[in-house]
């Protein structure tokens, strides 16, 4: 919704719209951002493979904490929201504003379900005794997935604003489609970050009786 004028006035040197270019630059930068967070989590899993100690002093394995059905469900929901987002962008390119609204509402709805699952997951883990303070695992897990959740929340806010903006009649033509496409790029990126998190944070904990980290490394020296 910004800088419409310049981009429509002069064709750019490469033919790429400014907004699309800056969004891809941002995503390249965000790769380093999530790379840092994910590697912080992974290297602490590598160092301390056996999980955490809950409030009662019981040793807890991560595998017994996680709920793979719930996580798989929310992963599926996020993937499908990405699909709807692609349809919403496609509808804008065809000038079908009603179809855009329908699809983007779907994205918002699925995004909210994902966030709801995350809130449920966080409260469930808290009840199980995992806090941000009581272990390194708690710190890295909550901050990593919480940061991802914040990205999702910002995306939802952005899409809600675009949805209402579409009723002003200003979200039209090439520039309107571009605005939606750029928001879509952000949304898809949040989705692919989750694809990585789903494998690197969740699935690996189910490999073998104590998870990949628990069996891949010596417990004592």
């Amino acid at each position, binding site marked *: 919704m910004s800088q419409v004028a310049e981009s429509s006035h*002069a064709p750019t040197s490469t033919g790429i719209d400014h907004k699309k270019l800056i969004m891809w630059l941002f995503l390249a*930068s965000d790769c380093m951002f999530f790379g840092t967070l994910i590697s912080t989590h992974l290297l602490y899993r590598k160092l301390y493979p056996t999980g955490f100690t809950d409030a009662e002093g019981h040793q807890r394995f991560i595998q017994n904490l996680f709920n793979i059905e719930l996580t798989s469900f929310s992963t599926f929901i996020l993937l499908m929201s990405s699909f709807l987002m692609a349809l919403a962008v496609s509808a804008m390119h065809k000038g079908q504003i009603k179809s855009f609204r329908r699809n983007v509402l779907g994205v918002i709805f699925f995004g909210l379900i994902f966030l709801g699952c995350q809130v449920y997951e966080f409260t469930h883990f808290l009840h199980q005794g995992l806090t941000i303070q009581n272990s390194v695992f708690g*710190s890295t897990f909550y901050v990593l997935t919480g940061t991802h959740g914040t990205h999702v929340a910002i995306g939802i806010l952005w899409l809600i604003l675009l949805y209402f903006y579409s009723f002003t009649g200003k979200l039209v033509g090439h520039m309107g489609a571009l605005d939606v496409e750029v928001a879509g790029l952000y949304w898809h990126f949040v989705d692919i970050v989750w694809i990585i998190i789903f494998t690197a944070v969740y699935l690996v904990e189910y490999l073998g009786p104590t998870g990949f980290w628990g069996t891949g490394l010596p417990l004592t020296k």
Partner: protein
Amino acid sequence: MSHDTHHAPVASKLELAPERSDLGLIRPDRSTGWADWLTTVDHKKIGIMYGAFAMLFFLVGGVEALAIRTQLARPDNDFVTARMYNQLFTMHGTTMIFLGVMPLSAAFFNFLVPLQIGARDVAFPRLNAFSLWTFVAGALVLNSSWLFEFGHLSGWFNNFDWYKSLVYTDFAPANGWFSYAPLSGTFGQANAALQAPRFTGVGTDFWIIGLQILGVASLAASFNFICTIINMRAKGMTMMRLPVFTWMTLVTSILIILAFPAITVALIELMFDRQFGANFFNPSAGGQPILWQHLFWIFGHPEVYILVLPAMGIVSEVLPTFSGKSLFGYPIIVFSGAVIGFLGFAVWSHHMFTTGLGAVPTAAFALLTMAIAVPTGVKIFNWLGTLWGGRIRFTPPMVLSLGFIWMFMCGGFSGVMHSAAPADAQQQDSYFVIAHFHYVLLGGVLLGLMSGLYFWFPKIFGRMPNAPIAYIASGLVILGFNLAFGPMHYLGLAGQPRRTHTYHEGNGWETWNYVATIGAFILGIGIFLAFANLVWTAFKGKKCSPDPWDGRTLEWSLPSPVPEYNFARSPIIATRDAYNEDKYGEKKIGYENDGGEAGIHMPSQSWMPLVAGFGFLMIGIGMPLIAMGVPHAGWVVISGLSVMFLGILLWALEGPGGYMLKTPTSSSPAPVTANTSSY
């Protein structure tokens, strides 16, 4: 687009009718004076403001440096307390890097890049203003810690409950510019209020949030500049015809967008440790403080090149101009700059040789570090090749650029010494390291930036700095600098440690510390003189021709000061060094048939970037207030977040607007008679 065609072109923005934005608010397009500067989206004005703030903070950081040197002039001195000393060197480093050098480089990016590529503005003018105001917010947050420290020392807070319950009362950061954990972090278990015991007071919180905000500013600016350079080049301005300064801006911006996320995350993690009791770097809960060092230097080493590459770009513009020759080996210079940037990501652990990385990583990082000397050396030889056989004019910018080559090389030599890990183990944390990086950052970067200031000031203000004072200042800077930092090589090898507030008599360090302090004051006088000369020039200097140096790149083809639309008609470029070729060669600059009576589209001014920046200021002050335990401080942060969000939302909803500005109708800017300089 419909919203700008219904306006008739005007000759000046003051003739515009008041226009409402999409929100119904009056756009500040017609504003003058303060309001004009606060709402401007003109890259040249933003550049000037960046420069002014940077020079101000250079002086602040310089005063801190002089206090440090005064303390160290004599053994067992008590000019400042040990705690104040720690705060001084921390704030000196942080200020010089983030509030001095980076914004001064950003000033050049802003002012020059659109002019050098033949564009009328940057890709996102309001985002550019947002970068500036966010930077100012971050700078104020960092330096407001001094205000709190002063209040603490003056006893302002004595009657407050939150003050009485503070465990530590250091209000200014005191951990060094890298704030190593665990000193900057926590220990033990978090209590019911989710706070673990900390080693330091709220100074560290000021540092964390201040740097976070400055990171936002740098990232936003860098996205904007990459976009501008890739996408807004004039016709015929291919990548390999870009002026080298623009190339180095591109490489620097790429480094910023890829390096800053690492420190952003590290700062988030440290903030969670301190404010919410997390365990990222808390050793008593299994956190690894060494991880902070890794994350910091993954950012920190590219940061070194973020500081030096713009200065290299400036020198690559100044040397050809005053040698009367084109730059020797342009493609190699550009390629070397890119290689330096790329390798900069692969050497971070050479800051950590003494932490016990293991034999293989140490050897690998040592080899990669040595490899960086190659592209750097290539650049030096290319600059020498540029000088060779040239008609050299020793103008003030040229003197400073030659100083850059010489001083930067000295810093490079001691840098290669560090890259040998066994030698580095002896030099770690000694004054030798101080000598090394001040030769690179002061002898290199600052001389380069000063050279740039003296080179482009006539273009920015249309006035020529006083030459005799400029020569005297340059001489004082180079003399004082060598007196101050040359002896530190010796002091370091003789065992004087860094970051130690005093030393006893009898170690053999007295003489050279005294000499270094004298040098530091000569340096300070030199820099003050150089800056005072520039400020005087901006207002009272002698008017000069638009092309006083016989320049080679596009910006010199424009009138001085540059009109707000930059190019009355967009240039069409046929060769590298386009303006030089236009003056003396066959390939003239062509001009497109735009502008004139039909007008040029100008972006509208806006209050919103300033509002968003103000939100950052509130967040930045609020977070340390929470850490201090000030009641209701959380509301300051929440209000700050709301103001920031509101600023960005209204910015998006107000619409870009814009108006049409007439330009002089002559087909191209009047050719400037080459007036070979007055020197």
